[in-house]
């Protein structure tokens, strides 16, 4: 078909967490501009399998931009050259015939590489488990409108809740800081009535877990927000700093 592309890929190959990795060159031919970036990888992997080579391991799940599973660092940018999308929503029409594309995994010591382009993001799960929840009694859920929530608070909470936990913020940050991810959850729950009882303990516990996982500190460069597929705002980080200072300086809770 006309308009199809031949590309050179430089892909990070690494056998497991302990071994050293390297960029390996691959050629893919006759790639349709309508393919998604991950479909292009499927084509490459089919080709590798048919040759008896090891396919490239990469994370993916929903392929519709909502699950937060895909995670490629493409030509120096998390989720590739387009703004506000995940890798699965990136299409090959964003590239040109003859391009060389460098694909690397998220790089952060808190996200150890499992294999090739897949990284272990369970550090995020542990941060959420440390406080990114609300405690409720079991039983029937109460009526949705029993607790009135001001529209502006609902909007702020909703915008923060859009975070899919993909880790692009960590990947983009020069310090591999998880501040944007953690602050999105902290600020979401801080704006909802259900989040109030654990508000002060939550922020302390989540920040402590974040530091323990080995993420860097925040330099306020804004790279996280610029690369976030869900456009989570830096305002969340300021809000979390405020929550954290309040919890430590003003709150009488331990």
């Amino acid at each position, binding site marked *: 078909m006309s308009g199809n592309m031949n590309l050179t890929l430089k892909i990070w190959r690494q056998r497991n967490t302990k071994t050293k990795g390297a960029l390996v060159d691959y050629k893919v031919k006759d790639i349709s501009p309508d393919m998604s970036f991950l479909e292009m990888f499927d084509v490459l992997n089919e080709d590798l399998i048919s040759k008896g080579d090891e396919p490239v391991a990469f994370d993916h799940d929903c392929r519709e931009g909502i699950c937060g599973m895909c995670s490629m660092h493409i030509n120096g940018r998390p989720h590739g050259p387009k703004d506000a999308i995940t890798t699965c929503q990136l299409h090959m029409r964003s590239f040109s015939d003859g391009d060389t594309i460098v694909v690397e995994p998220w790089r952060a010591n808190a996200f150890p590489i499992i294999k090739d382009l897949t990284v272990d993001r369970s550090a995020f799960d542990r941060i959420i488990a440390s406080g990114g929840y609300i405690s409720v009694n079991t039983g029937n859920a109460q009526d949705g409108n029993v607790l009135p929530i001001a529209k502006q608070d609902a909007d702020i909470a909703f915008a923060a809740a859009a975070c899919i936990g993909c880790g692009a913020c960590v990947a983009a940050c*020069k310090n591999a800081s998880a501040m944007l991810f953690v602050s999105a959850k902290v600020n979401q729950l801080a704006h909802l009535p259900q989040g109030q009882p654990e508000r002060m303990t939550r922020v302390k516990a989540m*920040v402590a877990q974040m*530091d323990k996982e080995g993420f860097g*500190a925040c*330099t306020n460069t804004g790279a996280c927000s610029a690369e976030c597929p869900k456009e989570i705002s830096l305002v969340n980080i300021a809000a979390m700093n405020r929550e*954290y*200072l309040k919890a430590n300086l003003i709150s009488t809770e331990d």
Partner: protein
Amino acid sequence: MAALTFILKSSIGNKLIMGLTGLFLIAFLMVHCIINSMIFMNDGGVIFNEAAEFMGKNVAIRTMEIGLFAGLFIHIFQGLNLVFKNRKARSVNYSVQNGNKSSKWYSRSMGLLGTLLLIFLIIHLRHFWYVSRLTNEISSDTNTLFDEMKKVFASFWVVLIYVLGMISLAYHLMHGFQSSFQTMGWNHKKYTPALKMIGFWFSVIIPFIFSTMPIALFLGLIK
């Protein structure tokens, strides 16, 4: 005081120290700039020397000077501490860097700019603070601080170092000023745009005024 250990233990606490000491140093810069601007009175340094003498002899000011050095050292050590900690968070780097696509170069280079400023500061303190506070070379009649300024800034290379130092300061402030407010949690859609604008112009104007001083003295525009 156990409640305050978070300042030392947590990344947000560490950052708070950077922001607060940074703002303290910004306040000092303003005072320093206003006093030094007295040389532009072009009165042979009379008013400037009086102001400098007041700053040198006043007990309150000298006590505050200790606080200033303390703030400076904390800012430097905490900054270096954070730079090394943050580097440890990513031991294998990308072969293709994100670069300027999603952040400003100076926001990513605060450690480098700070190091350049530290080198400048050592030279600057040797030129003026050391000579006026720790030696007897400056006196009110034979060799005033203004005379010393004229001597120091007679060299082209010294003037160049000072101008380069002020360029580093401008970029350091351009990120640092607004960043310190973000760290303290002050980000509000009503005030932050104004605050960022004030930060930008502060970062341009103060280093600009400072760098005109050695240039004006070198060119003999002030006598």
